């Protein structure tokens, strides 16, 4: 096992707004090995984008990284000067964003924007820049690259623009490419093409990829390892297989149960997660998912669970874990996923016997 190229330790980023201090990212730790594909999954507002932006020092006022270390090739990025960070950006770590139309400058030619990424750093010799630009465009499968390189962004289609953005990102042969929701703004068929492209580029160039998305399906296609984030924390991480087939955190489990599947049986019910994510200014005590978790226990209200190993190479932050939920709370046959429904535990100490709760649920009419 080689040393990871990126190691994030206990990263915390807060936003100091007029309405209060938004604790967007709290104590996030993960690492990326060379050439690895890592997916970061979570709903809007869970902190995944902010985490990525923090790595490159792109978080703007009123946001600020308030703690932790970001070790890139052994050096802490948070201690870098502005100039040193600028050097890393686009050269060793590259980032591409969600909407390729608004992410490119409309008044500059596509080729110019790709080339300027290379001119700005010293990795590619000046004379090689222009031909490499055309080459990159070919690599990302834009046809007629020699002509297209002189076009303006509005002359490209959505998928082509994103490919151009990928070309821009990879132009300086970075060690790590961070892709923040790269397919969200695209059609489904184009999405698949982009993901395939990213996979191939990962193999060809050996650049590690962090893929940020709220779409589980996207992650399944590309990433070897997956992180699940909720309300600013990592709640689970493991290999793609583990996450999809044996999720241990109730949130991950709920997400998977709520995705419609073509191969599901007719009677298979889509389960929803009741409630809303917590207010990041005024966070609840204990486990942040407890207000919505069907399997919560007493401890979840008062203590926040640490990330612990639940299987080889898999970690989750939960007092209960799905293993126990399946064994003791009837998670396999559950029909009601309202908070505390399966465990019978509610705030204020009201604890109903599980069997009575299930009987009550089974007898209730409607949903």
């Amino acid at each position, binding site marked *: 096992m080689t040393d990871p190229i990126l190691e994030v330790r206990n990263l915390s980023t807060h*936003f100091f*707004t*007029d*309405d209060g201090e*938004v604790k*967007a990212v709290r104590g996030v730790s993960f690492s990326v090995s060379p050439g690895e594909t890592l997916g970061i999954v979570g*709903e*809007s*507002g869970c902190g*995944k*984008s*902010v985490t990525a*932006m923090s790595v490159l020092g*792109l*978080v*703007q006022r009123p*946001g600020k990284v308030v703690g932790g270390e970001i070790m890139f090739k052994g050096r802490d990025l948070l201690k870098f000067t502005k100039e040193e960070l600028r050097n890393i950006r686009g050269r060793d770590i590259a980032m591409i964003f969600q909407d390729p139309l608004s992410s490119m400058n409309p008044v500059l030619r596509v080729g110019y924007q790709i080339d300027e990424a290379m001119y700005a750093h010293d990795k590619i010799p000046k004379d090689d820049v222009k031909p490499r630009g055309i080459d990159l465009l070919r690599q990302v499968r834009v046809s007629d690259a020699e002509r297209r390189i002189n076009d303006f962004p509005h002359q490209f289609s959505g998928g082509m623009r994103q490919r151009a953005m990928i070309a821009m990102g990879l132009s300086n042969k970075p060690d790590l490419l961070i892709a923040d929701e790269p397919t969200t703004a695209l059609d489904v068929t184009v999405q698949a093409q982009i993901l395939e492209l990213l996979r191939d580029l990962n193999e060809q160039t050996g650049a590690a990829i962090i893929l940020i998305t*709220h*779409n*589980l399906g996207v992650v399944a296609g590309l990433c070897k390892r997956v992180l699940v984030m909720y309300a600013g924390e990592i709640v689970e991480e493991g290999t793609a297989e583990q996450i999809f087939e044996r999720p241990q955190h109730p949130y991950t489990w*709920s*997400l998977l149960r*709520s*995705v419609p599947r073509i191969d599901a049986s007719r009677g298979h019910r889509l*389960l*929803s*997660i*009741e*409630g*809303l*994510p917590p*207010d*990041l200014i005024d966070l609840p005590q204990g486990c942040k998912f407890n207000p919505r978790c069907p399997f919560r226990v007493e401890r979840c209200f008062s203590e926040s669970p640490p990330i612990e190993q639940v299987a080889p190479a898999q970690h989750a932050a939960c007092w209960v874990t799905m293993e126990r939920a399946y064994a003791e709370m009837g998670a396999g046959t559950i029909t009601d996923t309202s908070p505390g429904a399966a465990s019978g535990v509610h705030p204020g100490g009201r604890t109903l016997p599980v069997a009575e709760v299930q009987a009550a649920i089974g007898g209730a009419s409607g949903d």
Partner: protein
Amino acid sequence: MAAIATPALEEYAGGTIAREQVGLWRDGFRRLRRNRLALAALVYLTLLVLLAVVAIFWTPYNPATILPHTLTFEAPSAAHLLGTDDLGRDLLSRMMQGAQISLIVGVGTSLIVLTVGVVVGLVAGYFRGWIDTVISVFINIFYGIPGILVAIILYLVLGRGLLNIMIAISATAWMDMARLVRGQAFSIREREYIEAARASGARSGKILFGHILPNALGPIIVQATFVIPIAILTEAFLSYLGLGIPSPLASWGSIASEGYAALPLEPYMMLWPAIALSVTLLAFNFLGDGLRDAFDPRQRR
């Protein structure tokens, strides 16, 4: 996919956090109150209006009277707080009268522009068709003519007088307003509740004034506020050239003109109207800015 739509919070990397949905008007007034410059401007203007109202009933001296026992070009003194002018008239009284004139011309012109511009704009923007084409062509032709030239000519044709100067200045100013209103009518027209109103049989007039106008009110008010300093400035300049308010009426512009000619002897006479005009125009501009910032929906944080 995420199981539940989560509207409460969005990624902050450059986006906005919307913690509560506040009504546009309430939010706007709240922001306006926080804008200290706009508030200061409002206070000043209120005082100015009060001064002008007082001047209707009382001024220290008659602004037109040449006082027999005073000297000309007196410096400010106890008897004449702002001094006297080149003919021995009390400057404070004349300045108060000037305040009346400036305010009347400013607000009056704005009202004319408001009325004409809104009506024309609404008609053009809502009914479209040939009416809109005719109006638009008309506006496009005359849009480029400098208002001041037209104002000078029109004013001469109409003859001197307060109402006439307001008409002369509005002659080109209404077109800007009409354009703005037309644009607003265009876009608001397309919104669903207008279709709903039409489907339920509401008459055009009711739709125009009951639905479209209220929604366009924000930018319209801002624009109307900005017409006032332009009108005051134009009138001041015309009076300065001797083409404006006839003497012996005192407009700040005419006082300034007489003061400019007397500059080597007596700086005060030009100083007072200069200050008054500058501060008043500044106040209106700050107020307009404040209104615009307060009601701009894109600026909500």
